[in-house]
């Protein structure tokens, strides 16, 4: 499929660039920022929400990408996964340092709406429609557990409170949901 091949080619480019960054290549770092910037910005903005803090966290993430580039192992997963793992971790660590559950609970009701707004506001990207369709193939509890955690930055305990479900159930739904998402996205 052309679309999948294009995604793989882009990721191969990003891998090559990160390896070059590890060697201190300044032009490569600019290219990494240009190529991975939109995904980093998107995920950090979804979790952090505040525009100023979003920018701060994005800067921290990209500088961490530079510092950690020498630890990137191309054989162990995609470059995009490596970068977005750093971005998501930084984003959730920021919001958890800032907010307590009581405050964040208020925001929970509109989080799904917020995600839809974000997704719709963005111009159609390579993969977006497919991801939305695959999220739609999850059960509602799987989808809520995955999206509250990923886009909302909520912990298992918080998601369990929000969905009035046992923590063990939420952990299982997160795993099952991601496995189903992976299978759906991987299918040609």
């Amino acid at each position, binding site marked *: 499929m052309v679309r999948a091949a294009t995604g793989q080619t882009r990721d191969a480019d990003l891998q090559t660039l990160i390896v070059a960054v590890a060697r201190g290549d300044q032009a490569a770092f600019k290219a990494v920022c*240009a190529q991975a910037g939109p*995904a*980093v910005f998107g995920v950090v903005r979804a979790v952090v929400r505040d525009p100023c803090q979003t920018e701060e966290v994005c800067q921290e993430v990209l500088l961490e990408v530079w510092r950690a580039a020498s630890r990137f192992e191309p054989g162990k997963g995609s470059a995009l996964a490596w970068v977005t793992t750093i971005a998501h971790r930084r984003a959730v660590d920021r919001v958890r340092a800032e907010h307590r559950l009581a405050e964040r609970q208020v925001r929970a009701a509109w989080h799904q709406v917020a995600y839809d707004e974000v997704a719709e506001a963005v111009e159609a990207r390579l993969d977006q429609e497919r991801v939305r369709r695959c999220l739609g193939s999850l059960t509602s509890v799987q989808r809520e557990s995955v999206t509250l955690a*990923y886009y909302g930055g909520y912990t298992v305990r918080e*998601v369990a409170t929000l969905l009035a479900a046992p923590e063990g159930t939420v952990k299982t739904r*997160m795993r099952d949901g991601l496995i189903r998402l992976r299978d759906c996205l991987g299918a040609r």
Partner: protein
Amino acid sequence: MRTPRRPEPHTLAGAYALDAIDGPDRARFERHLARCPACTAELRELREATARLAGAAAADPPADLIEHVVAAWSGRPTRLRT
């Protein structure tokens, strides 16, 4: 009343991939990961799925954000906009 059974660590790969566990739980799962190749392999695959979630939310960052990062990286002071 039934005592809740402590979940097996390898069921936590999903929650860990979503950064939904932290503190001692995160550290405990990371120790488990170090000696569980099956969980390491599963986590790698689940992170490809979360990367696609990030990709689906992608949006153009403000233009000066990247400029600031590159300036910080190269050790030059950021030029103020006039």
